[in-house]
C-alpha cells in the first residue's frame, strides 16, 4: 500500500545500529542465499557425473555419499564454493608471487594494462572534450560519432588492434593498454562534454564580466563544474577497460593475465581454476572501482554542503 506519510521511527536507534539493521543485514542475507544456491547447484549439477565416475552406477550408496562426492570432485561441472576458496587461497599462499600459478601474478599483468590504458584514455578524453566544447565545428562534426559509438560494440575491434599493433612490432602490455584506452576514452569524452557545458548561463556571464580569459573560465568554472560528471564516467571507463584488457589476452595466446588464465582453464577443463580466476577478476574490478570512488571522495570533499 502507498502510505500517505512516511512513518518516522520514534525510537531511532543510534547511527551504526540503524545502518546495520537497514543496510548490512539485507545484503548479508542475500549473499548467504547466493551461497546456499551455489551449493545447491553444485549438488544438482555434479550428481550425474559423481554417480557415473565416483560412485557405483548400480547403486548401493546413500544420498550422504552422493553429497560428499559432489562437493569434492576433481573436475566438477560446478565447483562448490569451498573448493574455489581453497584453490584461490592456495594459489596465493603456496606459490611465489612471480609464479604463473599465483593469481596475483596475473592480476599484476592485467591490472597494469588496465591502469595504463585507463590513464591514457582519460587524458585523451579530457583533451578532446575541452576541444569539442571550444570548437563548434568539432562539436557538430565529431561529437555525434562519439555518442553513436556508445551503441556500437567497439570491443569487437580488439582483434584488429592486436593484429595491427602486432604487425608494427608491438607486443606485451602495449596492445592491451591500447584496447583499454579506447574503451575508457568514449564514456569520458561524452560525460566531460556534458560536464563542461553544465555551468549556468549566469555563471558564464559573470566570468565574462570579470573579463576572464577562456583559460581562466575553463580552469575556474568549467572544470570544477564537470567533476561530478567525470567520476561516474571514470567508473564506467575503468570497468570497460578491465574487460578490454582481459579480452585482449584471448586471441594472442598470451600466457599471463586473468583472461589467459580463464582460457587455459577452459582448454584443460580445470573448472576450479576458471572459477577462482573469475573471482579474482571480480575482485580486481571492484578494487579498481573502489579506487576511483576514493579519489572522487577526496576530490569532491568540499562539496558536501551543496
Amino acid at each position, binding site marked *: 500500500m502507498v502510505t500517505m506519510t512516511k512513518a518516522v521511527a520514534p525510537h531511532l536507534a543510534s547511527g551504526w545500529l540503524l545502518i546495520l539493521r537497514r543496510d548490512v543485514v539485507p545484503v548479508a*542475507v*542475500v549473499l548467504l542465499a547466493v551461497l546456499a544456491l551455489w551449493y545447491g547447484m553444485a549438488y544438482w549439477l555434479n550428481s550425474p557425473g559423481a554417480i557415473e565416475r565416483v560412485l557405483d552406477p548400480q547403486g548401493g550408496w546413500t544420498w550422504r555419499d552422493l553429497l560428499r562426492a559432489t562437493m569434492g570432485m576433481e573436475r566438477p561441472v560446478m565447483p562448490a564454493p569451498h573448493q574455489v576458496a581453497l584453490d584461490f587461497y592456495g594459489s596465493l599462499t603456496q606459490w611465489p608471487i612471480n609464479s604463473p600459478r599465483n593469481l596475483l601474478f596475473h592480476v599484476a599483468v592485467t591490472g597494469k594494462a588496465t591502469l595504463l590504458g585507463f590513464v591514457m584514455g582519460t587524458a585523451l578524453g579530457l583533451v578532446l572534450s575541452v576541444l569539442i566544447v571550444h570548437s563548434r*565545428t568539432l562539436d557538430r562534426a565529431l561529437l555525434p*560519432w562519439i555518442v553513436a559509438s556508445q551503441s556500437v560494440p567497439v570491443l569487437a575491434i580488439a*582483434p*584488429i588492434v592486436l*593484429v595491427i599493433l602486432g604487425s608494427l612490432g608491438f607486443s606485451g602490455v602495449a596492445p592491451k593498454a591500447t584496447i583499454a584506452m579506447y574503451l575508457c576514452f568514449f564514456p569520458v569524452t561524452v560525460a566531460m562534454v556534458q560536464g563542461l557545458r553544465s555551468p549556468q548561463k549566469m555563471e558564464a556571464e559573470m566570468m565574462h564580466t570579470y573579463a576572464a580569459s577562456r583559460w581562466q573560465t575553463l580552469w575556474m568554472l568549467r572544470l570544477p563544474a564537470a567533476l561530478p560528471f567525470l567520476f561516474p564516467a571514470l567508473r*564506467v571507463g575503468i570497468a570497460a577497460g578491465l574487460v578490454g584488457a582481459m*579480452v585482449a589476452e584471448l586471441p594472442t595466446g598470451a600466457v599471463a593475465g586473468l583472461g589467459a588464465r580463464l582460457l587455459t582453464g577452459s582448454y584443460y577443463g580445470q573448472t576450479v581454476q576458471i572459477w577462482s580466476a573469475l573471482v579474482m577478476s571480480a575482485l580486481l574490478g*571492484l578494487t579498481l572501482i573502489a579506487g576511483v570512488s576514493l579519489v572522487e571522495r577526496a576530490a569532491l570533499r568540499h562539496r558536501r554542503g551543496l
Partner: protein
Amino acid sequence: MNSLAASALFWPGMALLAVLAVVSVRRVAAIDASRWAGTATAALFGVWVVVFWEVLVRTLEVPRVLLPAPSLILSAMLEHAVTLWGDFVQTVGKAVFVGWLLGSGLGFAVAVAIDRMPFLQRGLLPVASLTSAIPLVGVAPIMVMWFGFEWPSKAAVVVLMTFFPMLVSTLAGLQAAGKLERELMHSYAASYPRTLLALRLPAALPFIFGALKVNATLALIGGIVAEFFGSPTVGLGFRISTEAARMNMPLVWGAIVVAAVTGSLAYALLVAFERRAAFWHPSVRQG
C-alpha cells in the same frame, strides 16, 4: 609508392582537398537553421573521413593487414554476403536477441516481484549495482562447458550481462512516480496492482527503455566476445577472431561493420519505440 603518389601534383592536390574538407565542414557547422544541421555536419565529416581513408590507403599502398581501403571492405562484404548473413543470424538473431529478451525480461520481472519487499530490495540493490564492476563476460568458458558450443551458451552469457542493469533501472524507475500522483491514486482508493499499472510502471518507462538501450549494446558485446572463447564455425565473433588470425582483414572489418550497423539500428529502433510508448513523458517531448 606508385606513380600517382610520386607525381608532383599529388601532395598539392591532397592539400587542396584537405582545405576543401575543412572549409566545407566548418561552413555546414556554422549553419544554425534546423535540427538536422548537426547531423548533416557529422555526416559530411564522415564522408570526408572515408574519402581520405580511401585515397591515402590506395596511393600510399598501406598494407592490407594494417588498414584495408573502404572499397575493399565493401567488396569483401558483398563477396561474403552469404557468410556474413549466416553469422548475423547465428549471433544476433539467436544468441544476442534471445539473451537480451530473457535477461531484460527476468530483470524486469524480479524488480516488479520484489517491489513490495523493501528488505530484499535493500539486499539486492547493492549487490546488483556492484556487478557492473565485474567482467561478467568471463563466465563464457563456463557457459560453454554447461550448454555446449552452440548459441545457447552465448545467450546465457548475455542473460547474465543484461539481467542486473535492468533490475537496477526498473527498481529506480518504480520509485520515480511523484508523491503527488501517488497520493492522488491513494485518494481514489486504487489497489496496489491498479497503482502499479496506471501510474508507477508508466512513470518507470524512461528508466526501462534506458536499460533496454544499454542492454542492447551490452548484449552485442557479450554475444561477440563470448564467441572468442569458443564457438561453432559460424557467428560474428568467430568470424572476427578467425579471420583476424588469418590476416584476412577486409572480412574482419566487414563483420565489424555488420555489428556496428546492428548496434545503431537496435538503438534507433528502441528510441522509436520509446517515442511511441512514452510520448507523454517530458524527457521524450523535449527531445
